[in-house]
Protein backbone atom coordinates (compact mmCIF):
# COMPACT_ATOMS: atom_id res chain seq x y z
CA UNK A 1 0.00 0.00 0.00
CA UNK A 2 1.31 3.45 -0.91
CA UNK A 3 -0.14 6.88 -0.20
CA UNK A 4 0.50 10.59 -0.50
CA UNK A 5 -1.28 12.44 2.29
CA UNK A 6 -1.68 15.94 3.66
CA UNK A 7 -2.45 14.62 7.15
CA UNK A 8 -0.22 13.73 10.06
CA UNK A 9 1.19 10.23 9.51
CA UNK A 10 0.07 7.67 12.07
CA UNK A 11 3.13 5.43 12.20
CA UNK A 12 1.64 3.07 14.79
CA UNK A 13 -1.26 2.17 12.49
CA UNK A 14 1.14 1.74 9.57
CA UNK A 15 3.31 -0.65 11.57
CA UNK A 16 0.26 -2.58 12.79
CA UNK A 17 -0.89 -2.90 9.22
CA UNK A 18 2.11 -4.97 8.11
CA UNK A 19 2.21 -7.33 11.11
CA UNK A 20 1.11 -10.93 10.64
CA UNK A 21 1.63 -14.43 12.00
CA UNK A 22 3.90 -15.18 9.05
CA UNK A 23 6.25 -12.33 9.98
CA UNK A 24 9.23 -12.68 12.28
CA UNK A 25 10.40 -9.12 11.70
CA UNK A 26 8.89 -5.69 11.13
CA UNK A 27 11.08 -2.71 10.29
CA UNK A 28 9.57 0.77 10.28
CA UNK A 29 11.42 3.83 9.02
CA UNK A 30 10.32 7.38 9.80
CA UNK A 31 11.82 10.42 8.11
CA UNK A 32 11.39 13.38 10.46
CA UNK A 33 11.99 17.12 10.03
CA UNK A 34 15.47 17.83 11.40
CA UNK A 35 16.30 21.19 12.93
CA UNK A 36 19.94 21.44 11.80
CA UNK A 37 21.35 20.51 8.38
CA UNK A 38 24.88 21.42 7.36
CA UNK A 39 25.09 24.13 9.99
CA UNK A 40 21.82 25.84 9.00
CA UNK A 41 18.77 25.93 11.20
CA UNK A 42 15.48 24.84 9.68
CA UNK A 43 12.22 26.29 10.99
CA UNK A 44 9.84 24.17 8.90
CA UNK A 45 9.49 22.40 5.56
CA UNK A 46 6.97 22.49 2.76
CA UNK A 47 6.62 19.41 0.55
CA UNK A 48 5.06 19.47 -2.89
CA UNK A 49 4.37 16.45 -5.09
CA UNK A 50 3.15 15.45 -8.50
CA UNK A 51 0.63 13.24 -6.77
CA UNK A 52 -0.49 10.84 -9.54
CA UNK A 53 3.09 10.16 -10.59
CA UNK A 54 4.39 10.03 -7.01
CA UNK A 55 1.97 7.27 -6.03
CA UNK A 56 2.73 5.44 -9.24
CA UNK A 57 6.47 5.54 -8.58
CA UNK A 58 5.92 4.45 -4.98
CA UNK A 59 3.96 1.42 -6.19
CA UNK A 60 6.80 0.67 -8.59
CA UNK A 61 9.30 0.81 -5.74
CA UNK A 62 7.16 -1.52 -3.65
CA UNK A 63 7.14 -3.96 -6.59
CA UNK A 64 10.91 -3.68 -6.95
CA UNK A 65 11.36 -4.47 -3.26
CA UNK A 66 9.01 -7.46 -3.52
CA UNK A 67 11.03 -8.81 -6.44
CA UNK A 68 14.27 -8.55 -4.47
CA UNK A 69 13.16 -9.71 -1.01
CA UNK A 70 10.41 -11.99 0.33
CA UNK A 71 8.30 -9.11 1.61
CA UNK A 72 5.09 -10.16 3.35
CA UNK A 73 3.56 -6.70 3.63
CA UNK A 74 4.68 -3.20 2.94
CA UNK A 75 3.23 0.28 3.57
CA UNK A 76 4.70 3.54 2.29
CA UNK A 77 3.21 6.94 3.10
CA UNK A 78 4.65 10.34 2.23
CA UNK A 79 3.19 13.52 3.62
CA UNK A 80 3.02 16.78 1.65
CA UNK A 81 2.21 20.33 2.69
CA UNK A 82 3.62 22.24 5.64
CA UNK A 83 5.59 20.29 8.29
CA UNK A 84 6.97 21.55 11.57
CA UNK A 85 10.22 20.43 13.22
CA UNK A 86 10.14 16.81 14.34
CA UNK A 87 7.09 15.87 12.27
CA UNK A 88 7.08 12.70 10.16
CA UNK A 89 7.45 13.36 6.43
CA UNK A 90 7.66 9.74 5.32
CA UNK A 91 6.94 6.38 6.94
CA UNK A 92 7.77 2.95 5.56
CA UNK A 93 6.82 -0.29 7.29
CA UNK A 94 7.95 -3.68 5.99
CA UNK A 95 7.39 -7.18 7.33
CA UNK A 96 9.32 -10.32 6.38
CA UNK A 97 9.88 -13.76 7.85
CA UNK A 98 13.49 -12.77 8.69
CA UNK A 99 15.01 -9.55 9.93
CA UNK A 100 17.82 -9.19 7.39
CA UNK A 101 15.30 -9.04 4.57
CA UNK A 102 13.07 -6.57 6.44
CA UNK A 103 15.97 -4.18 7.10
CA UNK A 104 17.27 -4.45 3.53
CA UNK A 105 13.86 -3.99 1.92
CA UNK A 106 12.92 -1.01 4.13
CA UNK A 107 16.23 0.71 3.45
CA UNK A 108 15.96 0.03 -0.26
CA UNK A 109 12.50 1.58 -0.34
CA UNK A 110 13.50 4.83 1.37
CA UNK A 111 16.64 5.11 -0.80
CA UNK A 112 14.56 4.69 -3.95
CA UNK A 113 11.85 7.09 -2.72
CA UNK A 114 14.54 9.75 -2.42
CA UNK A 115 15.84 8.95 -5.90
CA UNK A 116 12.79 8.71 -8.14
CA UNK A 117 9.54 9.85 -6.49
CA UNK A 118 8.48 13.31 -7.72
CA UNK A 119 8.26 15.06 -4.35
CA UNK A 120 10.11 18.25 -3.50
CA UNK A 121 11.05 19.90 -0.28
CA UNK A 122 11.28 23.58 0.43
CA UNK A 123 13.38 24.45 3.46
CA UNK A 124 12.17 27.41 5.47
CA UNK A 125 15.21 28.48 7.47
CA UNK A 126 15.13 30.03 10.91
CA UNK A 127 16.82 33.05 9.30
CA UNK A 128 13.69 33.72 7.27
CA UNK A 129 15.22 32.55 3.99
CA UNK A 130 13.61 29.77 2.04
CA UNK A 131 15.08 27.38 -0.59
CA UNK A 132 13.75 24.66 -2.82
CA UNK A 133 15.99 21.63 -2.35
CA UNK A 134 17.04 20.24 -5.72
CA UNK A 135 20.00 17.89 -5.24
CA UNK A 136 22.75 18.45 -7.77
CA UNK A 137 21.77 22.05 -8.44
CA UNK A 138 23.83 23.44 -5.58
CA UNK A 139 22.49 25.57 -2.78
CA UNK A 140 22.93 28.98 -4.35
CA UNK A 141 21.72 28.07 -7.80
CA UNK A 142 18.59 26.58 -6.36
CA UNK A 143 18.06 29.35 -3.89
CA UNK A 144 14.90 31.31 -4.16
CA UNK A 145 15.14 33.59 -1.20
CA UNK A 146 11.86 35.25 -0.77
CA UNK A 147 12.14 36.18 2.86
CA UNK A 148 15.85 36.99 3.05
CA UNK A 149 16.30 38.97 6.23
Amino acid at each position, binding site marked *: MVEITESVIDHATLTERVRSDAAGAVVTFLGTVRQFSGGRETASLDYE*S*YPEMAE*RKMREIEDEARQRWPVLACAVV*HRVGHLELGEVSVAIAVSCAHRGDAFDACRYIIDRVKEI*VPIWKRENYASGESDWV*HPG*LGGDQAA*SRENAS
Partner: protein
Amino acid sequence: MKVSVRLFAFARELAGCETLELQLPEAATVRDVRRALVDACPALERLAGRLLIAIDAEYAGDDQTVPAGAELACIPPVSGG
Protein backbone atom coordinates in the same frame (compact mmCIF):
# COMPACT_ATOMS: atom_id res chain seq x y z
CA MET B 1 -0.07 19.98 -31.82
CA LYS B 2 -0.65 21.72 -28.54
CA VAL B 3 0.46 20.20 -25.25
CA SER B 4 0.43 21.45 -21.71
CA VAL B 5 3.31 20.84 -19.33
CA ARG B 6 2.88 20.76 -15.55
CA LEU B 7 5.59 22.50 -13.57
CA PHE B 8 6.68 21.77 -10.00
CA ALA B 9 8.77 23.24 -7.19
CA PHE B 10 11.53 25.62 -8.31
CA ALA B 11 10.59 25.16 -11.97
CA ARG B 12 7.07 26.30 -11.17
CA GLU B 13 8.44 29.29 -9.28
CA LEU B 14 10.84 30.28 -12.05
CA ALA B 15 8.08 30.04 -14.63
CA GLY B 16 5.56 31.78 -12.40
CA CYS B 17 2.81 29.36 -13.37
CA GLU B 18 1.69 25.77 -12.81
CA THR B 19 1.35 24.79 -16.45
CA LEU B 20 2.82 26.00 -19.73
CA GLU B 21 1.02 25.55 -23.04
CA LEU B 22 3.44 24.61 -25.82
CA GLN B 23 2.98 24.38 -29.58
CA LEU B 24 4.88 21.34 -30.89
CA PRO B 25 5.28 19.78 -34.35
CA GLU B 26 3.52 16.43 -34.91
CA ALA B 27 5.72 13.51 -33.76
CA ALA B 28 7.71 15.86 -31.52
CA THR B 29 10.18 14.21 -29.16
CA VAL B 30 11.03 14.98 -25.55
CA ARG B 31 14.07 16.84 -26.89
CA ASP B 32 11.67 19.16 -28.73
CA VAL B 33 9.71 19.66 -25.51
CA ARG B 34 12.86 20.73 -23.67
CA ARG B 35 13.67 23.27 -26.39
CA ALA B 36 10.09 24.59 -26.47
CA LEU B 37 10.02 24.90 -22.68
CA VAL B 38 13.06 27.17 -22.58
CA ASP B 39 11.80 29.15 -25.58
CA ALA B 40 8.47 29.71 -23.84
CA CYS B 41 10.09 30.49 -20.52
CA PRO B 42 13.77 31.52 -20.65
CA ALA B 43 13.95 31.53 -16.84
CA LEU B 44 13.95 27.71 -17.00
CA GLU B 45 17.31 27.76 -18.81
CA ARG B 46 19.24 27.57 -15.54
CA LEU B 47 17.45 24.31 -14.63
CA ALA B 48 17.33 22.91 -18.15
CA GLY B 49 20.18 20.39 -17.94
CA ARG B 50 18.75 18.96 -14.72
CA LEU B 51 15.09 18.68 -15.63
CA LEU B 52 13.50 15.34 -16.37
CA ILE B 53 10.40 15.19 -18.53
CA ALA B 54 7.49 12.88 -17.73
CA ILE B 55 4.91 11.73 -20.25
CA ASP B 56 1.65 10.53 -18.66
CA ALA B 57 3.28 10.28 -15.22
CA GLU B 58 6.31 8.27 -16.38
CA TYR B 59 9.89 9.46 -16.91
CA ALA B 60 10.63 9.76 -20.62
CA GLY B 61 13.90 9.61 -22.56
CA ASP B 62 14.92 12.45 -24.91
CA ASP B 63 14.17 10.42 -28.04
CA GLN B 64 10.69 9.43 -26.96
CA THR B 65 7.83 10.72 -29.10
CA VAL B 66 5.10 12.76 -27.46
CA PRO B 67 1.65 11.24 -28.15
CA ALA B 68 -1.15 13.68 -28.91
CA GLY B 69 -3.13 14.46 -25.78
CA ALA B 70 -0.35 13.32 -23.43
CA GLU B 71 0.07 14.93 -20.02
CA LEU B 72 3.60 16.29 -19.81
CA ALA B 73 5.42 17.31 -16.66
CA CYS B 74 8.69 18.97 -15.97
CA ILE B 75 10.46 17.31 -13.01
CA PRO B 76 13.34 19.11 -11.29
CA PRO B 77 15.68 16.98 -9.13
CA VAL B 78 13.52 15.35 -6.47
CA SER B 79 14.01 15.84 -2.73
CA GLY B 80 11.34 13.83 -0.96
CA GLY B 81 11.98 11.62 2.02
